[in-house]
């Protein structure tokens, strides 16, 4: 399972990507979708999810609608037009980063760059 540190850095992008589908989603649904799509590798807790959802809402990237379902209030999140733009940017940025990281991991550590030494 992915570590908290790795999830933290990509959580915003994960949420935006899910909501980019256009369907309104609520918190628990987001955690279940992420879990299903990553075969259980990424499991979001409510402690990590809700602060970020509220931050995205405060930044104007998400709008919410509350519906009463099974005798309780359920808040659905949808992307705003600017949220859609940011979602695209963030996904491209993450893909580029993964590509860079992959290149780095595939590289051989034989490249010896010893600063200050004079190579003939």
């Amino acid at each position: 399972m992915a570590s908290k540190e790795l999830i933290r850095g990509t959580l915003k992008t994960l949420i935006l990507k899910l909501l980019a589908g256009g369907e309104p989603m609520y918190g628990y649904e987001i955690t279940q979708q992420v879990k299903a799509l990553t075969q259980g590798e990424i499991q979001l807790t409510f402690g990590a999810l809700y602060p970020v959802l509220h931050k995205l809402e405060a930044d104007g990237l998400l709008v919410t609608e509350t519906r009463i379902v099974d005798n309780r209030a359920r808040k659905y999140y949808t992307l705003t037009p600017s949220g859609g733009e940011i979602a695209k940017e963030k996904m491209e940025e993450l893909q580029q980063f993964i590509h860079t990281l992959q290149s780095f991991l595939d590289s051989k550590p034989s490249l010896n760059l010893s600063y200050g030494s004079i190579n003939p």
Partner: protein
Amino acid sequence: MARLTLEELEQICQLVLQADLEDEALEQELIDHISCEVEHAMDSGLAFPQAFHTVVSPIDCLALQKVEQDKISLIRTGKRLKKEFWKNLKRTILWNLASFSIFVPAPAFMYGLWIFLGHVGGFSASVVGTFYLIRWMNTWIEWSQFKKELKITGD
């Protein structure tokens, strides 16, 4: 899919209400989230008491309060630091200017006891000015670190 009865839902509400959160919307969301988790556990064959225990046992008031604190800090920290940065800078400049304006004319235009009082006043203003200078520098460092962290996490 399992559905909670009103009594069962009430138990979950009580748990969340104990945390005494200020944000009512977040409170409602947490009630719904925990209810969904309990229903999910009931779908796997557990009765409500066992499902409730399984889901709720790792959750306490502190965990719920932390969600609210994290939310507030994510939204407000940047704004707060920016505000403090400018406030402390303004106070640093004003108090140091006040210190100079009292210190400098003291020997030139004042006599006797007034010189002494001018020096005491100037020195006091300079102490306060230094205090705000240190606070401003701390805020500057904190704000720089916060901005750096935002770049790393992409928030």
